[in-house]
């Protein structure tokens, strides 16, 4: 059975483009122009994944509300924010509401498709028994590439998809400096330098919430970041 993806986007041209691209990847697509119609439909049938814009028609933050309501319906449902708003604050708010990823509209369709696929893979992996082969361990860190789960000293660290891929790229080759472009490629995003910086900052903070002494991601000025054990 085809996976069903809901796209909530008030810009019709964009909505149709996303729908067409994802449909080509074999998903069944439902599109909605505003929060009300989307929510009505979700109550009848919950999609397998939701892509939501933040500002919806007359509601500037309608996407946030929708995310909150959706999360209330289903705890596991993957939610991606796809928005023209690129402020740090929006990203933090969106992720805090339980979104799995926060993308700006700069993302290309193949990238978007890759993310969608990744999120579905994670869902599938979560339902399968552990596959030790996909697990990367670096000291206290262990990364499950299949389930896209990260733990530090056994404690799960909740990362967004982008953050997960950044950590994954760094930890795979400890000691190697990854510049920003490499990190962007790994995360399947096109971001500017500042956004990478704030992603790194957020990742560090998340690990520090688990272990205050966390210091494994090191800045190499002018070049990028590296993972140190």
């Amino acid at each position, binding site marked *: 059975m085809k996976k069903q993806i809901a796209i909530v986007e008030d810009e019709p041209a964009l909505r149709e483009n996303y729908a067409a691209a994802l449909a*080509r990847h074999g998903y069944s697509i439902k599109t909605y122009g505003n929060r009300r119609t989307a929510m009505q439909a979700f109550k009848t049938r919950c999609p397998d994944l939701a892509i939501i814009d933040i500002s919806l028609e007359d509601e500037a933050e309608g996407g946030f509300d929708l995310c909150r309501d959706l999360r209330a319906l289903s705890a596991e449902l993957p939610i991606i924010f796809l928005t*023209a708003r*690129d402020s740090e604050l929006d990203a933090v708010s969106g992720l805090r509401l339980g979104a799995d990823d926060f993308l700006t509209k700069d993302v290309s*369709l193949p990238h978007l498709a890759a993310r969608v696929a990744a999120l579905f893979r994670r869902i599938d992996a979560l339902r399968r028994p552990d596959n030790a082969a996909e697990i990367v361990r670096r000291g206290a860190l262990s990364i499950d590439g299949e389930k896209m789960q990260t733990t530090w000293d056994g404690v799960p660290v909740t990362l967004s998809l982008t953050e997960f891929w950044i950590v994954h790229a760094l930890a795979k080759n400890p000691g190697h400096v990854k510049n920003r472009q490499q990190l962007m490629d790994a995360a399947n995003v096109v971001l500017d330098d500042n956004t990478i910086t704030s992603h790194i900052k957020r990742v560090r903070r998340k690990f520090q919430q688990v272990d205050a002494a966390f210091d494994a991601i090191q800045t190499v*000025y*002018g*070049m990028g970041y590296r993972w140190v054990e």
Partner: protein
Amino acid sequence: MSIRLQLLMVALTTLVLPWAGCQYARELETALRSSQEQSLLASAGTIANALSAQPQRVFHDAGDTQAFSAGAGDLYVYPLVTQPLLDGYREDWDVPAEPTALPTTTGYRARLQAGSTEGFLYLFIEVRDSHFDAEPNNVRPDTDRFDRVNLALDGPNGRETYFFGTDAPGLIAAQSVVRGEDGVDRVAAEPRIQAFWLQAAAGYQLEARIPLSFVGRHLWVEALDGRGKGRAGFAADSAAGGRLFFATAGLDSLLETFIGDGTLATVIDANALKLGSAGSVVSKTRAETESSEPIWYRYFLDVDTSEMPILSMAPDHLSGESVGSALVGHPHAQWVRGDNRGEILLMAAAPIMIDGHLHGAVVLQQAADQLLALRDRALSRLFNLTLIATAAAVIIMFTFATWLSLRIGRLRDAAESAVGSDGRIQLTMPESASADEIGSLSRGFERLLARLNEHAQYLRTLGGKLSHELRTPLTIVRSSLDNLESEGLRDDQRRYITRAREGTQRLQSILSALGAAARVEESIKQSERVNFDLRELMICAVAAYRDGFPAAHFALQTPEDACFARGAPDLIVQLLDKLIENAVDFCPKEGTVTVRLERVQASYCLQVANDGPLIPEALMGRLFESLFEQRRGGDDKPHFGLGLYIVRLIAEFHGGTAVAANRDDDSGVVFTIMLPLI
């Protein structure tokens, strides 16, 4: 010219007050002069009238109206104040005039002067005769030749003749030839007529004293040389003879009763000869009490006196326009200059008419000093008052102008610094609460600044807004291209797609740059400050730049020990990125980009310098403004002038400053960032 100076000049126009005062004082003086003329003329007229009522007290011989003629031997008899000593000298006569020369046809020179006291007529005869011829014993005056002076007097008993001669100089008596009862002429001494014969190298001087009872209307004097034919004077038998013109005895004291202090009164006869005088132009009381110290501003207002005639001070007669006018019957007053120290005198003359005939004149002289004193008193007050007023006006004007220019200066300073170097606009101006024009100017500035601020605000947010608003349509284009690509395209179609994609890519980077400032501002707000080693950061960063810009040469100079600073290292790296990008853009191929870090007092001085074109002077202060880009780099990348703006934002976030300058030797430019230690 500053307002202060302008108002000061305006204030100086109040100097017209003292000038007007001067004009007024001049008019006052003119009025005073004319009133003094009138009053002195009236006094002269009164005295003349009084004197004409008692001509016998004024004129010696009121009936004699024949004019005085020195050529005919007429002689003015000077009134002598004291009895002179009979010694052959006339110095004790105290007469300031020289004797008059006697007429001569032979070149024999003699001079004569006459004076009188109450009882005697004095004669002084000075003869130029280098050889003394003594009088022989038993002289026969008709035939003997010796130096002699003949004297003939119109005595009460007819004409008497005498002669003076001596065998030895000294006190002598006059001699006369007396026809005895025997009919023989003999020489007899007349002891009542005494004389002193003083022999000198050039001649002799004879001072003779004759009782007034011997003296009549006429007098003949003749000097004869003892050898040769020298003679001078009037022979006793000549008809002409000299008339004697005496001053009138007692007239002085009579005049004294008419005049007041500071006035000189003189009575002259129709020949302008002095008959008597009293008083003095110098006031006795004033001369003592008033200092004659000149008051400086007299200099500005002295009436021009150079055209006034100079008073001629002959001891025996008076002259001048007013005297002449009075002696033809018209009272007249005139200002004259005294002969000493330029004093100004008023001279008023009134004729003395007796029975309709002119007999003489009264001449009054008065100093103008009294006028001056009056004028000076008035002027002093006027001057002082107007000067104080002027000074006050100048001071007030100056203070006011200073205050005014201070306010305007404050406004100007505020206007100049209203738009700060960081582009922030100061919206409030000083003086805007004032109700006057400066206040309204200030309010006008405020309105202007408010609008400017709105505009600047709009410009500042324009980039972010544009990038936000354009993002959605751009995404539509790109996602459409993505879709189109996955439809499976021919190669030629794919080529166009690729071009369209490149276009959207460029558009994307432009939008990204436009929004960069806003994003940096936001990320600065959220930055956390940590302690970090600036030196290590720079070493790492420069190493990275060497990789990133393989074509450029980098030189790095840092202190040897760690340089700890507090701030956001990511931002510092970003700052360095921008400066290095900028430096590499402008640095020529063979040039060097020099990065330097050093401690300067309480700051770190971070410099990025490059060889290459200089920054034009006009751009120097504006380089760090948002969206300001005048310099063209060597590549085709879009420049939105945000790089240096971001540098400034980051420097200011760290409490530092960013400055651009050309190198002293004009070989390139230096960007200097000062960051405080910790």
